[in-house]
């Protein structure tokens, strides 16, 4: 067992860390206070190859493994969880399922556009009645004149405002639950797809979160992603990867908390001593560092398993559960350690606090992660 990163992984980490520090961090607070899509940063990220990290080079991607993806996501999230959300959705929820389940024609049409950042993608699973119960999808897909016709409403779609491509899950078969669902590649230019309500959020504000409306949306037959009725398999496999990306995001947020707390503990004087001289502060920082390291190792392990082609559903859930709860806990401690300064917008820790919360919710709440892990523990599935 070797815990050392390879030379490539180290160089990728260094390059993305520099990109994040010089080009994202200086605008991170402004993107939060005045939410807007960071088009220039996303274009720059695309030029560095960060929008198609795992897409093979023959399709215009960087051809990296999943471990490289989590290294990149942590660095991006350390600077701005909002910017990172946009990028991780593109990689894990859009490129990944096309790569795993797409036909050669679908890969040729979509992956080069996504990997180069010409197109942004979004992932449409959640519905008003299908949140944690994701397989209760009600959006319908019917075959008409050799095409699929989609009708329904999708909620909480990240990147939905800017995306040119949506992966949409809809019920194509009469079977209930997971068995009747299919996945579709829906271009925004297809008739019948539109953006509904734009949500105002607590955190990750520069990424859009919208409602996607499907009203007699016509999708060519060849845009079925994966087998007919096998959408649940596409969705669940995709979420394994997505959760590993969220775990990396949470590690990045938690690391931001720790690094800012360390700097503050060294600089801030109270009772004639720097904060770092107080044992309560030392122990808080020690706990933060330990929990972050544990979360990162679980995240790396899950990515490594997925790279090997092994089933990693429980391990991805464990990584996301531990990392997201670590991020929320670390942010809570960070605000407390900063005191009044932690509660005002002049310092970034209140942003970390708001950003951290989403990691316990999206792509499966902590409760759902525990459900997944308990199934593995109790039933071995």
């Amino acid at each position, binding site marked *: 067992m070797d815990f050392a990163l390879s*030379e*490539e992984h*180290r*160089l*990728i980490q*260094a*390059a*993305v860390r*520099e*990109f994040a520090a010089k080009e994202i961090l200086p605008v991170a607070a402004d993107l939060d206070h005045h939410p807007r899509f960071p088009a220039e940063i996303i274009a720059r990220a695309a*030029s*560095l*190859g*960060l929008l198609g*990290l795992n897409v093979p*080079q023959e399709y215009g*991607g*960087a*051809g*990296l493994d999943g471990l*490289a993806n989590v290294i*990149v996501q942590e660095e991006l999230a350390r600077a701005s969880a909002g910017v990172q959300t946009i990028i991780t959705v593109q990689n894990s929820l859009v490129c990944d399922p096309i790569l795993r389940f797409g036909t050669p024609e679908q890969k040729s049409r979509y992956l080069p556009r996504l990997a180069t950042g010409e197109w942004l993608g979004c992932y449409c699973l959640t519905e008003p009645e299908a949140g944690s119960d994701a397989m209760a999808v009600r959006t319908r897909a019917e075959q008409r004149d050799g095409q699929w016709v989609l009708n329904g409403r999708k909620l909480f779609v990240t990147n939905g405002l800017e995306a040119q491509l949506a992966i949409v899950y809809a019920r194509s078969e009469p079977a209930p639950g997971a068995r009747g669902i299919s996945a579709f590649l829906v271009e925004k230019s297809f008739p019948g797809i539109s953006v509904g309500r734009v949500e105002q959020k607590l955190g990750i504000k520069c990424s859009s979160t919208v409602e996607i409306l499907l009203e007699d949306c016509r999708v060519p037959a060849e845009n079925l992603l994966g087998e007919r009725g096998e959408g649940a398999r596409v969705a669940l496999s995709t979420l394994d990867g997505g959760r590993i990306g969220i775990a990396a995001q949470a590690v990045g947020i938690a690391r931001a908390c720790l690094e800012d707390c360390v700097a503050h503990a060294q600089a801030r004087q109270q009772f004639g001593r720097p904060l770092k001289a107080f044992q309560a502060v030392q122990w808080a920082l020690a706990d933060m560092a330990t929990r972050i390291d544990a979360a990162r190792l679980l995240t790396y392990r899950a990515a490594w398993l997925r790279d090997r082609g092994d089933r990693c559903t429980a391990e991805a859930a464990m990584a996301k559960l531990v990392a997201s709860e670590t991020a929320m806990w670390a942010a809570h401690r960070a605000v407390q350690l900063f005191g009044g300064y932690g509660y005002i917008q002049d310092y970034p820790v209140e942003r970390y606090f708001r950003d951290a919360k989403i990691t316990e919710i999206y792509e499966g709440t902590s409760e759902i992660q525990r459900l997944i892990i308990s199934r593995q523990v109790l039933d071995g599935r």
Partner: protein
Amino acid sequence: MDIVVCLKQVVDPELPARDFAIDPATQRQVREGRPLVISTYDENALEVALQLKDRIGGKVTVLTLGPAAASGDAIRLALAMGADEAVVVDDSEAPQRLGAAKARLLAAALRRLGRFDLVLCGCESADWVERVVGPLLAEALQAACVTFVSRIEQVDGTLLVRRLADEGFHLVEVRPPAVLAVTSDESNRPRLPKVKDIMTARRKPVHTWPVAEVAGQAGEEGPLEVEVRQVTLPERTARCEFLSGDPGEQAAALVQRLRELKLL
């Protein structure tokens, strides 16, 4: 055009001061356990070379003198940024050597390399700041030398380079082969490598030459031009001075004090 860029690896100059230490036995900076990076101006030199290659094509070779085992990251980074191949002169003593000895070994390595039109290096290293390698290298190679080069202005017909000077710049016409010692400006900020290129950099050739082979070609070792007897850390002291008077008087006194301290 064949361009060679000399890269030196130094302990990351952005490390906090508490990580800076002197080895009392060698009177050199302790490198063990510290991250090594490409010396700041050498990265600018590489950027100038890559921009020239982007404009007119050619080949960029990076040349480094140092322990091969510790040179991997710097070489891979340079190749990922766009250099075509690398030569490592494997020299475990390199961190002990000063500019004159280094210039002699680099010149020998360049002769062994054979073809080159331009040799670029940083105008000074981030650790010793001697500013001698460029000119001594040019002398050893019997090549032209321009120092404090910030950019290459023109390449067709004649080579025109911009040399930074006090309150302006010189435009210098150079005939290759030439050595350019590069300084930084906004035009040569080192590019970030694309992640894809970090992966493909592995496929580019890296030649490792034992220093003994190169030193043999360098001929007789010259006298040790510089001997370092002792290196000490500067003492940092801080004191606080209060200026009195109304704000106008305080401002005037502040300006005067800053002038006295040669900070203005």
